């Protein structure tokens, strides 16, 4: 091959054959890039520009609804101090007051109060905040490390066996076990839960990132980039990372729901966030003792977790269908 474009026939038996890159100069003098010209028949056949991915996404009604729900949830979590009607930690004399739709509810506490007379609505805002922080931080950190490992394994095939053995070992520790182990060492709290969930995200993310990156590395544009003399760093960030990032993001958005569920379960068991802070799983656990008399204390936070996770899952599924149907399995 005289230039790095596949299918170049310039050094074939018939030397007068024009190279696929369009350059008519003799072999060895090509720049290795296909010149863009209107006369190029392939360019004329180029498909219509594709509709923006987010437009296609929002045309799906369930995805639209899910994004709306998540937006509202995130807004409530961010604006918790501003929109909370009461202090989430202050008890009042109205203990176990039912929510507004049940008999005996009033507008002072629209979602009622918990076993210590604290306003449920305000605690929900703050609880959502902590639940989302635990989920986002652990998915973010774990996702970053995992994708770096996976991409490096594909980029430098020499590293691949080492990275994958590491991943195999890490896969042997499911999130819940890591959580139990770290809490045993560090004591209950949000931090060990975040660390455990982040570590548990790394191996799965590395596997996904690697499998996507391996197929990207076989594409012609990587070879073209190399031929252009791009540095490894530029090749890695501009060519590899950019083409893998959407698949990785889809995986992480689907992972987010699971992480929230495990974090909430750990908090429910008393191993995660500590009182008096509010966390949705912990709030459900506190409501467990009042299940008979005031079921809303346990049910409302549980339903909120369900809604958040469901929205994240639906949105993740829709994102995958729109951005990367290959991942569908």
């Amino acid at each position, binding site marked *: 091959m005289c230039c790095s474009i596949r299918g170049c026939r310039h050094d074939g038996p018939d030397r007068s054959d024009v190279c696929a890159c369009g350059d008519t100069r003799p072999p060895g003098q090509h720049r290795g890039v296909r010149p863009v010209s209107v006369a190029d028949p392939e360019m004329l056949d180029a498909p219509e520009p594709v509709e923006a991915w987010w437009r296609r996404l929002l045309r799906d009604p369930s995805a639209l609804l899910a994004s709306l729900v998540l937006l509202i949830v995130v807004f409530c979590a961010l604006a918790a101090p501003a929109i909370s009607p009461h202090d989430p930690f202050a008890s009042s004399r109205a203990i176990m007051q039912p929510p507004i739709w049940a008999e005996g509810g009033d507008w002072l506490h629209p979602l009622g109060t918990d076993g210590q007379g604290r306003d449920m609505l305000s605690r929900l805002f703050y609880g959502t905040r902590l639940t989302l922080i635990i989920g986002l931080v652990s998915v973010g950190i774990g996702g970053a490390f995992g994708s770096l490992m996976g991409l490096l394994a594909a980029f430098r095939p020499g590293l691949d066996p080492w990275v994958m*053995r590491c991943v*195999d*070992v890490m896969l*042997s*520790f*499911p*999130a*819940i*076990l890591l959580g*139990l*182990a770290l*809490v*045993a*060492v*560090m*004591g*209950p709290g949000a931090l060990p839960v975040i660390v455990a969930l982040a570590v548990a995200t790394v191996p799965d993310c590395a596997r996904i990132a690697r499998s996507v990156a391996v197929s990207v590395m076989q594409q012609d544009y990587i070879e073209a980039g190399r031929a252009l003399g791009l540095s490894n760093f530029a090749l890695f960030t501009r060519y590899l990372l950019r083409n893998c990032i959407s698949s990785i993001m889809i995986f992480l958005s689907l992972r987010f*729901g*699971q992480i929230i*569920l*495990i974090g*909430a*379960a750990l908090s*429910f*068991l*008393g*191993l995660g966030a500590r009182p008096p802070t509010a966390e949705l*799983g912990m709030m*459900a*656990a506190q409501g*467990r003792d009042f*299940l*008979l008399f005031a*079921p809303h204390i*346990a*049910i409302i936070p*549980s*339903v909120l*977790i*369900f809604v958040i*996770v*469901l929205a994240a*899952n*639906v949105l993740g*599924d829709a994102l995958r269908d729109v951005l990367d149907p290959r991942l*569908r*399995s």
Partner: protein
Amino acid sequence: MIEQILKRLLISIPVLFGVLFLGFGLLILVPGDPAIVMAGPTATPEVVAAIRAEMGLDDPVLVQFGNYLGRVLQGDLGRSLISNKTVVSELAAAIGPTAELMFACLIWSVPLGIGLGTLAAVWRGSLVDRAIMAISVAGVSLPIFFICLMMIQYLGVEWRLLPFIGRGGPLWTIDGLRHIALPALSLGAIFIGPVARMTRSSVLEVLKLDHVRTARAKGLSETRVILRHGLRNALIPVVTLIGLQVGYLLGGAVVTESIFSFPGVGRLAVGAILSSDFPLAQGTILVLALGFILINMIVDILYVLLDPRVQA
């Protein structure tokens, strides 16, 4: 085939060491002096020093790890700080119930999940398919503790159908069955969704293959085509995927056992961690990790046995 299985066993050796090191590290990493932790807050300095010497805490870490390995191999995991029973005896009493719970959960959820997934694949795009997929997405999004609480609230308290505290006895007795019903229903409920999803995509994949077309061309009935030629081949990936979900199930079991006071390893672990019973916590985590590795190994070997293509 034997080569494949040997390879799989070799891979699990570093994992095994990792697990043992984790178990060992748990006691070493505990903030503060493990000897003080072991001795309790009221111990005198002499007692602490004696425990330090006894535990070999003055030795280099690698020597300590070696000693720890030796003790574990002899089945010595120390004594519980709370009950003063040996950790091994506590674990021995808890492993059976956990295995029972897992079995009782899988026995109904896996066949149901596979059935639903197959139906969804066969009637792809229909209302049935969409309903089944919606249920399974909802199922994966439900917090397990919520399912457990609802089971207790309605099936246990309100309608008084089934007991919801503890274990009634071995699985083969009526009382044992009645007590395990609610935990097994709750745990299975979160497992149907993933199984149905996996089965659906796996069956869809297989139904596209040539041998299915041949079977149809032969004039076989559609039921026969789907059951004998579709589902049968689709089950192989489902087996591995179920294996991959064992960690997910384990997390659910820890929560379920705790809520229903079911005396399994998960509840033991949570109780030990909450009461700072370090030797017991270490033992339970070790056993849970070993169980997880073992199940994954069995699933991988099953995969090799089931799918002749892997053997090549």
